[in-house]
């Protein structure tokens, strides 16, 4: 067994592979990021999410990440656009992908209101792409410095992306193995009928059995699709399923660029031959046919230096260990995960909840005993308010902001309480946090928040 693992390990890291998948990956990722970033700009979200709000919900430990003001934010996005372009064409690749990773991640860390699994996924992918020589083939860098050219790379450079994608799908599948998803067909039984105006299939969506079919198919798809993509026999079918699955979900739900990102990046599972064909096609439409004949025969193997290799291996092992453990951290917290959301983020839990809430905050002056309701819109955007109402860590952050603000207004040690009414997967609203607890005195840390009220519904 040990030898078997060792052999697998060694083959994962050392087998020689053609570099073509990396080059295609670079162009696919760069191009889709370019489109995503431009789309984000055109939708006016830079202003709506990072300039307009007066307050931001920072991530624990990243309180130092602040928006950069209007000019700064647009500059940051301009850098993202340029970096994505450079990645796509493979010019100044390392600098470009490092810049992209840092800028993108910075933006994501500004405010957890906008947290999406697929933004996290982009950060992870960009991070992994820093480690690989994706610019050593079919790139401007190679035109610029022909001695950068490599035709073969060690397997890990391609394998890490496959592994990451398998993990994403698999964990997304595992997270669907719940009572809500499988037995209650929640939240799809709410979401699907909402699409009943769609042509042709619209009428079907109102049937309960359809919600069950979608739920079960979704779970099975997520659990197995990664492995089906890995297996050469099932690969073609799997990719067709990937395209259908993501196009359909993209069509039904408002999930932005995510489906297209997945359709683009899962190409990496295909063989080098397929990738060479893609490159050949690109060569033809860009009118550069010649040099391929030379490089195809030459076998130039990319090998990082010993030190660099050790560093990269350590990073990879550390990265995937974290990736494997992070989705399970919720087990350390009591209560229903969807309700408390303690350990919910960064775990590939996608589209699992129909959750909504309304939160009222109250300030009491301990000196006079007078109480006041807070007008949330004075401090938060509508989007922030909606997200905050259903997430305890954000409720706490907001309560702390209010304590500060009212302290400034001259109220000493204001008592901040919250009445948030939350509904989860059709449960109907119920009180979410203990409305008697002075949140100004509660601290944010890794421990369970005892002031979250338990989830319970009375069955009729």
């Amino acid at each position, binding site marked *: 067994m040990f030898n078997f693992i060792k052999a697998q390990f060694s083959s994962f890291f050392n087998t020689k592979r053609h570099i073509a998948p990396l080059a295609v990956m670079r162009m696919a990722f760069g191009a889709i990021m370019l489109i995503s970033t431009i789309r984000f700009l055109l939708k006016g979200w830079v202003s709506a999410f990072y300039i307009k709000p007066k307050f931001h919900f920072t991530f624990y430990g990243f309180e130092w990440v602040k928006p950069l003001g209007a000019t700064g934010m647009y500059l940051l996005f301009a850098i993202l656009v340029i970096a994505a372009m450079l990645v796509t064409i493979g010019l100044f690749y390392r600098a470009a992908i490092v810049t992209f990773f840092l800028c993108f991640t910075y933006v994501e860390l500004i405010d957890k209101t906008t947290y999406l699994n697929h933004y996290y996924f982009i950060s992870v992918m960009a991070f992994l792409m820093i480690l690989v020589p994706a610019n050593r083939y079919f790139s401007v860098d190679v035109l610029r410095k022909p001695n950068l050219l490599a035709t073969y790379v060690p397997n890990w450079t391609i394998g890490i992306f496959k592994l990451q994608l398998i993990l994403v799908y698999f964990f997304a599948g595992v997270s669907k193995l719940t009572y809500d998803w499988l037995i*209650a067909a929640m939240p799809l039984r*709410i979401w699907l009928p909402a699409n009943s105006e769609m042509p042709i299939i619209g009428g079907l969506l*109102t049937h309960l059995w359809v919600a069950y079919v979608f739920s079960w198919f979704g779970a099975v798809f997520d659990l197995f699709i990664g492995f089906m993509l890995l297996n050469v026999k099932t690969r073609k079918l799997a990719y067709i399923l990937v395209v259908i699955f993501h196009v359909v979900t993209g069509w039904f739900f408002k999930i932005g660029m995510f489906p297209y990102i997945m359709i683009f990046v899962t190409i990496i599972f295909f063989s080098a031959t397929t990738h060479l064909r893609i490159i050949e096609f690109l060569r033809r439409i860009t009118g550069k046919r010649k040099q391929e004949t030379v490089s195809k025969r030459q076998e130039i193997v990319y090998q990082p230096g010993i030190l660099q290799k050790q560093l990269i291996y350590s990073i990879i092992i550390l990265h995937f260990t974290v990736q494997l453990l992070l989705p399970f951290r919720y087990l350390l917290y009591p209560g229903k995960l969807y309700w408390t959301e303690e350990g919910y983020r960064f775990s590939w839990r996608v589209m699992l909840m129909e959750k909504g809430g309304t939160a*009222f905050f109250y300030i009491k002056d301990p000196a006079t005993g007078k109480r006041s309701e807070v*007008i949330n819109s004075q401090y938060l955007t509508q989007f922030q308010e*909606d997200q905050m109402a259903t997430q305890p860590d954000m409720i706490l952050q907001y309560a702390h902001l209010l304590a500060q603000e009212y302290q400034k207004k001259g109220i000493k040690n204001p008592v901040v309480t919250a009445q948030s009414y939350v*509904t989860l997967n059709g449960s109907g*609203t119920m009180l979410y946090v203990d409305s008697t607890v002075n949140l100004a005195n509660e601290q944010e840390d890794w421990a369970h928040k005892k002031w979250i009220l338990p989830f319970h519904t009375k069955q009729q």
Partner: protein
Amino acid sequence: MRKLIYLAIVAASTFFLVESCKKSDSGDQTNTGSSFDRKGMLTNMSTNIIIPGYTSYQAATVTLNTAVTTFIATPNAANLTALQTAFQATYKQWQAVSAFEFGPAAQINLRVNTNTYPADVNQINSNITTSTYQPDLLTNLAAKGLPALDYLLFGTGADNTAILAQYTTGANATYRKTYLGLLSAELKTNATTVLTTWTSTYPATFVNANGTDVASSVGQMLNQLVYDYEVLKNYEIGIPAGVQSMGTLYPQKVQAYYSKISVQLALLHIQALQNIYLGKSASDGLGFDDYLDAAGAKYSDGTSLNATIKAQFATAIAKLQALSDPLSTQITTNNAAVTAAYTELQKLTVLLKTDMSSSLGILITYGDNDGD
């Protein structure tokens, strides 16, 4: 490699199947599976509620404008009383259409142009003394529309004799009359613009946008229903009653402060919102109540969400009925009754904004964003 993978799958699957079979207490919606006719609901809303609403409101603004013209020509006590009556009738009709701030109304920002209060008395007086009125100026939002007329017709003197004097012998009487005419004409023009679109091209657009996203008609209706309800809860009741100001009361911030019909208007307003919810006009057509029932929506106590919402409408209305005009006086003398009404109104906010939208899978948002 493959063996390892299968091993992992089997182990993980077993673990999570066991996990998932620990019964969790959720998902007790009993979706009947029957399809709800959203198009039918939209048709009912547009034909039986929205268009008749705008027709009545527009007619009221026409009558009001005529009464203003008569009063300007002959400012006497009888014409003032007639004008005041026409004004109150218009204010009452407005309550029925305030919630439809999408499509034609949104295009001209009808709600804020018609009913931004409290009226900015200083701005109104400065407009009169300088004989200038620029309707597009942002600072004039609180110096126009119904609240400004409320002040001009009821608030510029202790009684009708004193008020009348402002238009006859008072300083700037001429421009005061002109201003009155400009404001009522603007109300009429806006109402006519919206009604014209609603009686020509817009109903088809409205009925055909029968999805559930933010831009769809159902999405817009629900969002505006909730938004307008919040206006009622906060601006008509909460803020004046001091619930958001550490107990400092702002009785002068109520709607229709000078004509003293605030409670009447609030009641008409909530009843109008209730009718939108029920899809109710002369007869009871398809509304959000039927939509919720078709979706099998439940409240957290296991009863039907529709029943809960209807009951809460009734409770809130009863609490408002317990109040009497002038509301500004009630706020200072019987604040407990006003805040009691506010508390019940707040419960309804949660039901409409969170329970209803979540049960129907409709996003309550005034912006736009991706999900995942």
